[in-house]
């Protein structure tokens, strides 16, 4: 039996009070709950504060480029569909630099669990507006306030018929629920996106832990996550009340399920070389 401490990694370099600690601890609990052996899963991350997380636990790790988590995660799954793959990214990473990959990972329905550390700001680069930053927020680069409409990742994912769309909140009160959401997301066969509201004590002085805490609530029991239009409607709720939970899910087949070459074995387990190329040569005669 693996315990929480078995997932201890490097010393985190986050600011004291950063919401990333809660996400890290919740994840470790999920690993314990699901009895995930460290070598049986891979965490892919980009560049940003949240993206440092895999170093702070025990797992196979691909800490790649800013914005490019999902292509790497997709490549891993296609090469080894027996590997559990989590992708961790910041809101800048995943909705900014990497926005295109998100769209297409959702379309593919690749069996990857995406956790977005959404602190509504670029943390590591010191406080610029991110795609989820509220309109009007003043930063060094936007001294008269950010002008763009903040991106609603849940609505967008639902519009793309993402097979699992959820939001969690990384504050004490929200953690047990977040833990359940992430567990469901990992268990889900197909692409699962969990947008996690995370405070940044240093650069986001508005959407603080308390700000979220006052607003976040759980989608009511009896909420039907299979109704796409209703899910869309609920995803638009933002402001005084912010719903968390699994907004939408469907059971369209995962990408891997559609690939006949993966029917028997993952690519990585298949024969390496084939000496006899004569059939291919003959075809060219």
């Amino acid at each position: 039996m693996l315990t929480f401490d078995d997932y201890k990694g490097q010393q985190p370099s986050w600011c004291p009070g950063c919401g990333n600690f809660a996400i890290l601890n919740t994840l470790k609990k999920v690993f314990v709950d699901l009895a995930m052996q460290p070598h049986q899963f891979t965490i892919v991350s980009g560049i940003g504060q949240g993206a440092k997380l895999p170093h702070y636990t025990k797992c196979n790790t691909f800490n790649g480029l800013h914005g490019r988590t999902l292509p790497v995660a997709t490549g891993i799954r296609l090469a080894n569909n027996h590997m559990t793959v989590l992708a961790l990214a910041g809101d800048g990473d995943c909705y900014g630099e990497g926005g295109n990959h998100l769209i297409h990972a959702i379309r593919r329905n690749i069996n990857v669990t995406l956790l977005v550390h959404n602190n509504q700001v670029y943390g590591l680069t010191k406080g610029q507006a991110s795609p989820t930053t509220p309109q009007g927020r003043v930063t060094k680069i936007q001294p008269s306030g950010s002008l763009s409409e903040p991106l609603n990742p849940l609505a967008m994912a639902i519009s793309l018929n993402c097979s699992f769309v959820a939001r969690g909140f990384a504050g004490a009160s929200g953690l047990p629920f977040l833990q359940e959401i992430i567990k469901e997301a990992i268990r889900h066969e197909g692409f699962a996106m969990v947008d996690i509201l995370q405070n940044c004590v240093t650069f986001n002085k508005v959407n603080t832990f308390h700000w979220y805490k006052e607003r976040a609530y759980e989608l009511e029991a009896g909420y039907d996550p299979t109704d796409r239009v209703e899910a869309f409607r609920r995803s638009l709720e933002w402001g005084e009340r912010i719903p968390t939970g699994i907004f939408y899910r469907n059971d369209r087949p995962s990408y891997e399920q559609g690939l006949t070459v993966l029917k028997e074995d993952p690519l990585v387990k298949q024969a390496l070389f084939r000496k006899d190329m004569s059939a291919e040569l003959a075809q060219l005669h």
Partner: protein
Amino acid sequence: MEYSIRIGGEAGQGLQLIGGVLAKYFVRAGFYVFSHQDYMSRVRGGHNFYQITFADRLLESVRDTYDLLVALDLPTIALHRHQLNNQGHILYDQASCGGKQEGEEFLDIPLALLVEELNAPRVMVSSASIGAVLAVLDLPLAPFQGIIGDFISKKTEEIVASNYAVANAAFVYARAHYDTIPSVPVATLADAPLMLINGSQAIGLGALASGCKFYAAYPMTPATGIMNYIAGKAAKYGIVVEQAEDEISAINMALGASYAGVRAMTGTSGGGFALMTEGLSLAGITETPVVIAEVQRPGPATGLPTRTEQSDLLFVLHGGHGEFPRVIFAPGTPEQAFYLTNKAFHLAEKYQIPVFIQSDQYLADCQWSLADFDSRLLYQEDFRLRGELLVGLESYQRYAYTESGISPLAIPGDSEHLVVVDSDEHDEDGHIIEDAPTRNLMVEKRLFKKMALLREEISPPLYYGEHNPQAIVVGYGSTFGVLKEAVEHLAGEFKIGLLYFSEIYPFPLLEQFDYVALLKEAPVTICVENNATSQFARVLHGETNHRCTYLINKYDGRPFTLQTLIGEIHAYL
């Protein structure tokens, strides 16, 4: 004996079918063949041509002139008749070329009419053209039947028969109205029949033969041919071919797959490669093996998207931020392309680095007739930490310092050992570091140690020609064939040699062959490149300190053609 045919017309008029079938026909008939395509960036209309030379000896380049021009439209006649050889002929149909043409060279065949009379669909005019060509060349029609099926999408017996009937009608008509033109002796080949193969297929085949299990790319002319070929074999070979949403994704997917334990490749042209350079740098610091086919076309930007150029050498050599090792191969024939693709996979995995196959539209699309490749010559060695190597392994560090700089390459999930890779500078375990000593050790391990060993892996350039030549022609990549034929031609008159590089970087050492001494001693050295700024000559100078006496450049999007190149070289002799 040597005979050239140029078929000209609009896109959509079946040039590829006519040219493709004829090239295959000639190969099957026992000739050596070389074919070349010149096409515009559009699906219908415009002006394109397809040129085939066949002969009784190896052919490796495009001829400036031809013996038979098949004109599918009037512009073809206007644009191409002046390059017809003496005694050459122009085969055409009045109906599609604005009426009867005057002149002895014209062979007037009512192709469309013949098709109509048989109630066959208009597209079968292509088969009629083929029938007429074969008649004119005095070659039998029968083998056509076994070939046409491979070139049409719906290969039913009925459609094949119908195509044959149409071809036959034109064949009979041509026989009846025109004497057969040249006397074309069917060459008898000593050994096995030849393959007809282009560079894209050769690279694709090389990938299959090297255990490539993953190919991710975004469509881009002229690189798409590789993807098409591999996709066609994917089911059989157990390969995932993934059309990515963009080139950034393509290379990152390939790195993900490679990290997960399979041999992975991507391919693109210059514009797509530009988008991959950040991922290339990621391959560099994470030491993830990957093979990249960069298939050049004339730039900058969209440039001339369906044409050829060798203008990305320095970009591929220096692309990506920061400093890391890489290998670049630039094959000159499908044969080189096949074996070098195999060597690319071999070195990529052995040294855990990105390796390039740099090709171009010319190599990608031209067809060579070649003997079968020999699978026994392939590198097929697995460098991963697998099976027995894992038994009892106590600890594992992805970036362990070693004598060679190469750390053991484990597969995540294969054992309890974790595989941690990082785009930040890292320690032996793969975790982020910022201290100077670790950084220094990693640069030494990753860059200096590996580069030193990589140099030893590179084969010397090829040299054809005299021992103490008056002049040496220098070239690299896809110009191989035309350079070789040009030098062979000039060798009658001059003491001349060809120094040819297909393994470009790192530059070959001098131990096995001191080509620098050869260059220094030659009174004249001429570097020939399909670009405007003599990129290879600059690399050559950087690596050997030798500056070529003359530079021949071509940057109009067209390949060098044999007779013109002979003339250009001759001018410097």
